[in-house]
């Protein structure tokens, strides 16, 4: 189902935040029903991380709508407009602020297709920045994707690199279901190759970033880079690691994961979110359920400790899982 991503078309190096801007621009150009809503998203601010820079100037403030700091009102307006035929992209500045508007997202966006018996749909994309690493403290740094995966009706996407950010965001915008697109702040300014032309990546297709035979390292978002670093280190120790980038958590490309783990017989799931009830718990359970008799040892989870995200630089560094944590877990796993 999936393969190492081949981008046949011409690319240019861009940071993820610029790739997101390109995806929004292209979607707005293509379809007048694409509108943006969010706090500070209009020029001259162009969003607190500049993801929407230039778009209100190009498309007017009718289509790039700066809002008051009212997350329920933002998502509610986006939901109504989506049911009425628009394809809104709502920016919730920081993922922790989803807590303020979870009723709109969970009780309404996610459920209205089902509750209406399929008569209405909510083609909404919610973008939010997320994650630790910038010393923003406990209320501006969380990874809450597991909350969202627990709600039937939502799709959850976490890109690992600028090219994927462009391709996956484009797909989310033109998808007929509500999608939450999680942008890790620490990944915003890391450059990568971004296809210049029209580009989309189907949801539910993981990417095998590196092939290997001894262990499968499964991750998503910016921890994919850690998994790649870990794989390189393990290679030097004589352990051949395969790296899978899930790209989307809902829908989940379980087929690619199981194919890899049935080959390597060992798996580690790594993410930045706290370990307890994180996505790794779900994926670990699924792997065990499907491949119990083929595994050489239990699936290991690498995630943050079960604490709020701290402020002090030293504490924040101790909180965020690293490539070294993945290497350690892999060493344990291959001993089995």
């Amino acid at each position, binding site marked *: 189902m999936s393969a190492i991503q081949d981008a046949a078309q011409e690319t240019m190096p861009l940071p993820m935040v610029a790739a997101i801007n390109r995806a929004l621009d292209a979607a707005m150009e293509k379809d007048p029903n694409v509108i943006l809503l969010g706090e500070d998203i209009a020029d001259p601010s162009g969003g607190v991380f500049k993801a929407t820079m230039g778009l209100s100037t190009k498309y007017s403030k009718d*289509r790039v709508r700066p809002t008051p700091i009212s997350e329920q009102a933002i*998502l*509610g307006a986006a939901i109504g407009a989506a049911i009425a035929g*628009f394809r809104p992209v709502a920016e919730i500045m920081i993922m922790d602020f989803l807590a303020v508007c979870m009723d709109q997202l969970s009780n309404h966006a996610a459920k209205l297709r089902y509750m209406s018996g399929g008569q209405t749909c909510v083609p909404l994309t919610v973008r939010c920045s997320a994650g630790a690493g910038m010393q923003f403290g406990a209320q501006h740094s969380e990874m809450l994707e597991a909350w969202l995966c627990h709600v039937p009706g939502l799709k959850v996407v976490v890109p690992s690199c600028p090219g994927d950010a462009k391709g996956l965001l484009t797909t989310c915008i033109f998808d007929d*279901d509500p999608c939450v697109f999680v942008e890790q702040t620490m990944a915003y300014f890391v450059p990568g190759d971004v296809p210049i032309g029209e580009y989309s990546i189907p949801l539910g297709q993981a990417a095998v970033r590196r092939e290997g035979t001894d262990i499968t390292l499964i991750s998503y978002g910016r921890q994919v880079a850690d998994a790649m670093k870990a794989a390189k280190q393990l290679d030097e120790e004589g352990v051949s690691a395969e790296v899978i980038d899930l790209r989307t958590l809902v829908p989940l490309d379980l087929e690619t994961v199981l194919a890899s783990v049935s080959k390597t017989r060992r798996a580690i799931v790594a993410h930045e979110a706290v370990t307890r009830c994180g996505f790794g718990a779900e994926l670990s359970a699924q792997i065990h359920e499907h491949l119990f008799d083929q595994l050489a040892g239990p699936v290991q989870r690498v995630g943050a400790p079960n604490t709020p995200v701290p402020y002090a630089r030293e504490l924040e560094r101790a909180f965020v899982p690293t490539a070294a944590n993945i290497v350690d877990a892999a060493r344990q796993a291959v001993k089995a």
Partner: protein
Amino acid sequence: MAGTAVVPQTDVLKKMFETMTRIKRCDERFRTMLTSGQIVITYYSPRGQEVIPAAFSALLRPDDYVVTTYRGLHDHIAKGVALRELWAEFLGRREGTCKGKGGPMHITDPKSGLMVTTGVVGSGMPIANGFGLAAKLRDTDQVTVVSFGDGATNIGAFHEALNLAAVWELPVVFVCQNNGYAEHTPYADGTSAAKVSDRAFAYGIPGVTVDGNDPVEMYAAAHEAVERARTGGGPTLIEANTYRFFGHLMGDTMEYMPKDEREAAMDADPVPRFRSWLVEGGHLSEDELAAIEAACDAELDDAVEYALACTPPSPEELFDDVYAEAIA
């Protein structure tokens, strides 16, 4: 009855009486069938609040949008949701508006413009703004009406929605059906404002309090607000005072509602009162009214018979319509 700006003409009065009758008879049938054990459903009776949606039924077009709340039967009927499908949905049948997935608290019927029914107090208002935004961006003259109770005016969503509707000048009419109780809590115990409409001042939009059980007064207020929205004048907050005859949820023992207060409200039942007024004022004859009632009864009998004969969804249908295409 006090008339204000716009006086409803005979065709409007007739439409309003017809809507009120349909609501009242539907409600009576649901309660009869519930108490006799013929059906088992969650039911929030709108009895006593018929006038408010009846006024809008004479003003809204099929392409106007309505968003309502769990006590929504009267709003559904007033917007024109077909009784057969509505009854089938209330009974949880496959042939219902929402294939039995929504139920009384989650009616959606886009062909009549009934877009969302929410079971979460106050949550419909932010979504109503989205329908208003769609109309504004498309430069149509569609109006969105969102109904909610007095209890909903104490939740954050109300304030966020009113503010945004005002800032964006959205064509949305916010209709607070103030029935005096937020579930079991009397208005004054939970609401700081003397009148809900006073809260409109904080958002710089027109706010008005009317007797929501007076058809002429209610119609005039609804007319003004709908016209304002339709002609680009932005949102209005209407507080329509009314009374909820049968408590919060079917089976509610209503100890918290003073007996004399409830009896007085039921003695002033707006439906028979309006009927008498129509006859005494020479607006409609006894024969015309009886014909409307007979037609409503026939339509209701047909809908009930239809719904009872419908089939429950099959267990496989549990998995339909979670996403556009099924995913793992």
